[in-house]
């Protein structure tokens, strides 16, 4: 029983970070219908800047720099590349981000060289014991941060003009432009925000508690693992990101113990396949419906 509880706690803790990563996909998808395959490289980039500046700025300052620079890189990507490919459709742009991801990732990994630094200074590997259960601090902080950010986004999408403008211009840029929606500003904001989310996520990912490894190519793979989370929740749904993240975290933790560890990665994808077979646009995604 203790084992089960501990696994659930582990799963939820990781799920919170997966939710944060999935939210990054969701924000951009909602604004542009582009699936950002380069999210993993934004995560890496943010982490890399933390590493570079930590010596001189300390953890807090470096973290802010990391978040900001991931955000700015995302913004630059949008402004310098995607915005210039106006004629390309969302799917081609998604493919473009694959190319970008390759470049940024390889460059950051090259620059990291042999160092694989951990980022979770303030809390890493300092667990708290309650009863027979161990609570990892990274998980606790991540849960709190995710809860705050996700609630904020949920409200913004639902109730602000920004949310409406975002969806409008994602669907039809010309019509949105005719409504006075500055689509460039909306998309740029979305990328900026998604980049910042990536910068926040990496602070949790490159820790002993979360990934067991410092900043490295593996950090990028974890962002990739958030993909099924975003998809099974529904790519355009904030609630979906939360549920998807937690489902992935739990599926991974429980299948590792009760089926086998090497199956756990497949288990995540299998859960996703089952969900998609029943609901082709994910649990909370907007169903595709067209008419002639």
């Amino acid at each position, binding site marked *: 029983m203790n084992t089960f509880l501990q696994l659930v706690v582990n799963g939820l803790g990781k799920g919170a970070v997966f939710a944060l990563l999935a939210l990054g996909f969701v924000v951009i998808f909602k604004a542009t219908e582009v699936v950002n395959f380069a999210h993993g490289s934004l995560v890496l980039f943010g982490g890399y800047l933390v590493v570079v500046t930590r010596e001189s700025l300390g953890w807090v300052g470096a973290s802010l720099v990391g978040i900001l620079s991931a955000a700015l890189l995302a913004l630059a990507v949008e402004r310098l590349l995607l915005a210039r490919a106006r004629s390309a459709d969302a799917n081609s742009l998604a493919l473009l981000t694959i190319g970008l991801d390759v470049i940024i990732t390889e460059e950051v990994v090259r620059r990291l060289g042999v160092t694989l630094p951990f980022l979770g200074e303030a809390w890493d590997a300092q667990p708290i014991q309650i009863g027979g259960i161990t609570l990892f601090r990274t998980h606790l902080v991540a849960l709190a941060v995710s809860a705050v950010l996700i609630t904020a986004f949920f409200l913004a999408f639902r109730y602000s003009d920004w949310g*409406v403008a975002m969806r409008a211009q994602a669907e*039809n840029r010309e019509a*949105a*432009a005719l*409504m*006075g929606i500055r689509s460039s500003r909306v998309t740029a904001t979305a990328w900026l925000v998604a980049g910042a989310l990536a910068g926040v996520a990496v602070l949790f990912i490159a820790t002993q508690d979360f990934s067991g490894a410092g900043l490295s190519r593996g950090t990028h793979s974890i962002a990739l693992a958030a993909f099924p989370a975003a998809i099974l929740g529904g790519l355009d749904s904030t609630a979906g990101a939360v549920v998807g993240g937690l489902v992935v975290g739990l599926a991974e933790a429980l299948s590792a113990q009760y089926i086998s560890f090497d199956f756990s990665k497949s288990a995540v994808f299998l859960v996703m396949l089952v969900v998609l077979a029943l609901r082709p646009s994910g649990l909370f995604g907007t169903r595709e*419906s067209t008419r002639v």
Partner: protein
Amino acid sequence: MLSVRNLQVRYGRSVAALHGVDIDVPADGVLAVLGSNGAGKSTLLRAVSGTLRLHRGSVVAGSVEFDGRRIDRADPAAIVRLGVVGVPEGRQVFARMTVEENLRAGGIGARDATRRAAARARVHELFPVLAERAKQRAGLLSGGEQQMLAIGRALMSGPRLLLLDEPSLGLAPKVVARIGEIIREIHAQGTAVVLVEQNAVMALRVAEHAAVLEVGRVALRGTAAELAASDDVQRLYLGGHAESWSEAHWRHGGRTLARWER
């Protein structure tokens, strides 16, 4: 209010769509623009609303002025803020958003909340079906309902100049007539209108002035009444049906097709 001078527009590197167009819309006037497929009507509206770029088009020469301000290089949002709002060809509602959200998106250009509420009430009054279907996904509306939504959406920001690209497309005759009235009403409340139409009967009835575009040039221009009386317009756009049908038959050349094999 709107003055277009020697406007030349190109798509991509090779397609020239407008070859020097001059158009004037007086404050609170209604200008009808007629022309056959591909004449450049939509291109003209795109140049005014600043959306050419979205179609890989660009203004090569000439100018567009609104209230004395050059807008041919301005971005669409800035143009909307000046009070120029367009309804694109083929409705282009936000298919995945609800009717209500579509209207909301239309109001984003207008900052002030009371104006928004008033505009919404007015749109609902003009198009009651939009109130009924507030929660329905816009993409699932019928063609005509979508057209109404598109016009309603444009009215949400209280424009001073409304650009309508073939609003009667796919609408029932009764609704076409109703749209005509609505345009007149909109006009009566002080909004100028540029109305691109295939339905010349309606357009010429609503408009004060009219122009006919042919292959990127203004071929004819004058008051609506003058144009309605012109031979070419009669034949091509108003359709004295009996003659033009036989003529069409002649143009069609009595082509034949071998019978099906099945």
